[in-house]
């Protein structure tokens, strides 16, 4: 469940970011498309990294073995 919810959060953040960029720098359709592409790419990259790290820890095969000291 945590995975889906956080994915949804990423989607929402992405949409908000693209809206913000559209509002604050609206410079013609071709430039807007470029900005949108950049925001979507950044969101996808960030989500991908988070998702990989999250999924890798869902069913771990290795567990932490504390070191001797302390």
């Amino acid at each position, binding site marked *: 469940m945590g995975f889906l919810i956080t994915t949804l959060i990423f989607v929402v953040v992405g949409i908000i970011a693209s809206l913000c960029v559209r509002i604050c720098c609206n410079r013609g359709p*071709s430039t807007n498309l470029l900005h949108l592409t950049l925001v979507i790419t950044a969101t996808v990259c960030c989500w991908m990294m988070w998702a990989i790290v999250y999924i*890798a820890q*869902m069913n*771990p095969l290795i*567990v*932490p*073995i504390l*070191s001797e000291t302390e």
Partner: protein
Amino acid sequence: MAESHGGGCCPPMDLMRSEPMHLVQVIVPMESAHLTVSYLGDLGLVQFKDLNSDKSPFQRTYAAQIKRCGEMARKIRFFKEQMSKAGVTPKETIDKEIDIDLDDVEVKLGELEAELVEINANNDKLQRSYNELVEYKLVLEKAGEFFASAHRNANAQRSEIETEQVDEDLLEAPLLQEEKSVDTTKQVKLGFLTGLVPREKSMVFERILFRATRGNIFIRQSVIEESVVDPNSGEKAEKNVFVVFYSGERAKSKILKICEAFGANRYPFSEDLGKQAQMMTEVSGRLSELKTTIGAGLDHRNILLETIGDKFEQWNFKVRKEKAIYHTLNMLSLDVTKKCLVGEGWSPVFAATEVQDALQRAAVDSNSQVGSIFQVLRTKEMPPTFFRTNKFTTAFQEIVDAYGVAKYQEANPSVFTIVTFPFLFAVMFGDWGHGICLLLATMYLILREKKLSSQKLGDIMEMAFGGRYVIFMMSLFSIYTGLIYNEFFSIPYPLFASSAYECRDVSCSEATTIGLIKTRDTYPFGVDPVWHGTRSELPFLNSLKMKMSILIGVAQMNLGIIMSFFNAKFFKSAVNVWFQFVPQMIFLNCLFGYLSVLIIIKWCTGSQADLYHVMIYMFLSPMDDLGENQLFPNQKIVQLTFLFLALVSVPWMLLPKPFILKKQHEARHQGLSYAHLDETDESLQVETNGGGHGHEEFEFSEIFVHQLIHTIEFVLGAVSNTASYLRLWALSLAHSELSSVFYEKVLLMAWGFNNVFILIIGILVFIFATVGVLLVMETLSAFLHALRLHWVEYQNKFYEGDGYKFAPFTFTLDGNEDE
């Protein structure tokens, strides 16, 4: 030559493809030529072609004007030298409103140069006489002292002689007085010479004089404490005053010659006390006169230099501008019959109205009866590549251009590079503490942008300043990945929730042998903070980061292949879509896409399957049973299918395309029509760039070999490029290990001593190590590797990069030209 993108579903994206350019021809009447070129230079949107390239520089129309400008530039350089020697700085700002005439400037420069040269010559002469007089004064002083002391001694001696026997060997005896006190039958006529000799040569001087005159001289030297300016060389030197007493003409000539050889300046000195005093006052008077004269001369020169300094930048700019204009005018061909100049150049399509506007204004301003003609030419030559970038995207475009300038209108990798490059950097850099440091540094550069851009910075600072927006993006992404890796100067923090792991039982007896177990939900954002410092940290993180690198790599390579699909669609090449894009996608995804899917399935199910084993045996023995390596049902069938598809896609990439191209070529030639302008396939080297008829050569064997190389490159590259992405893991591991070492072995160790001084030293060492190794070296290292991943693994899927950059004629980039 611009084709509309896709099917009109979305507008063409800024920066994706280079601006459409056209070849324009401009015919200008002679009288408005100069003004036209000047206005076009101000506009900065036309790249002129050199129509007189076969002529030597001296045969060109405007060679004389260029020589004039060269002369003026030389004079300006001379002024600049003089100003910097005198310490006068020219006024920085230029009054752009005042338009000055080149002829006026030339005349003024000539006058000023003559005046300056004259002043300098006079100054030198005066300075020389001044120095000589200073030396003369010193000689008068010191020699005067010597003779005075000699007189005193003589008087003392005389009184002694009257009472005692005289000792003949007294070298200190005043010679002049002794002459009178001894037998007057021997009248030895002694002469003397006074002067100055450089201190380092003084001993040798004395010795040589002694030897040359066989010891028949008496020399007395006296050290001058301050250094004196030598009149001949103009430099300060340490000198001694010498007095040489000799007898006889031969000795005198020898001494004179030796003095000349040693560069010792001689000055006349009279024995008479009265005359000495007179000379002294005279010399002092002349010295002070000369000093005021020299002072006045220097003042006059400085005033002159300051007047030059006021106008210097303006003249400099004007001369360089005129030179550039004449160079460009030389590129236009002279149409003698029509008394006009014809110019050809590349210009962006969007600038057409502006260019015509400039032409019209020039025609009006130069009062010519005829206006200029502007027309567009059709050509098969490849236009230059021009991207309209702003201060943010310029740095990224330069990064891409450093590898190769994009071919005209092919997809520009820098669109996605703006995000993926900082992202890949951050994957290798991941530490939010270091990210914040980078952010602060780059915010300083960005906030002081205006001020720093007008200053002259050193080479390294120049590069860092130019890339400030790149570093800004890099730092933002680094903070994000640092939060994901959970590293703040290598210390993890449970920022988002508590750790998911707990001891198996209350006593935690097995924590160091078997380890903890996962009881709560997965740590919601990033790596669980419990991992840092555990014994199994490295196996876990290595496995995680390696698989992450593969996933990211496969994603970026797929993006690259999709970019090649965009190119194929834009240039309307169905061959490239069906016989290059499709088999490439199939090959890459059947093997490495499948691997990525396996990774995700393994993570999701927590299976213990060995992925190395799975992948290798998929090739070695595909028919074998998978056994415990089964990750999903029917895996064997799926694997066999993928293997078959991958094997099929190789000849699919290799064989059909050359034959189809051959058929197309034949069809074209049978139709006897011009080739379509958009049939620019990557592998089709048919059209040479020389324009004209488009004489097409079609060497089938060449095409085939080219396709073979391309296929082998792709197939082998699929494996090697995927493995190459593992550097993301490697550098990230290096960074976190270094950071952890600096923290534990420096800071914690210093803390453990409980001593303030050791703590302070430890903190200093930690700061220097962090800044030097992690913030500078690691940044450069990760930057370089991210760059390599883009240039090679990403761009070789679609980028050709054999275009040339648009270099318009403009005045704004006149940096330090020295033509």
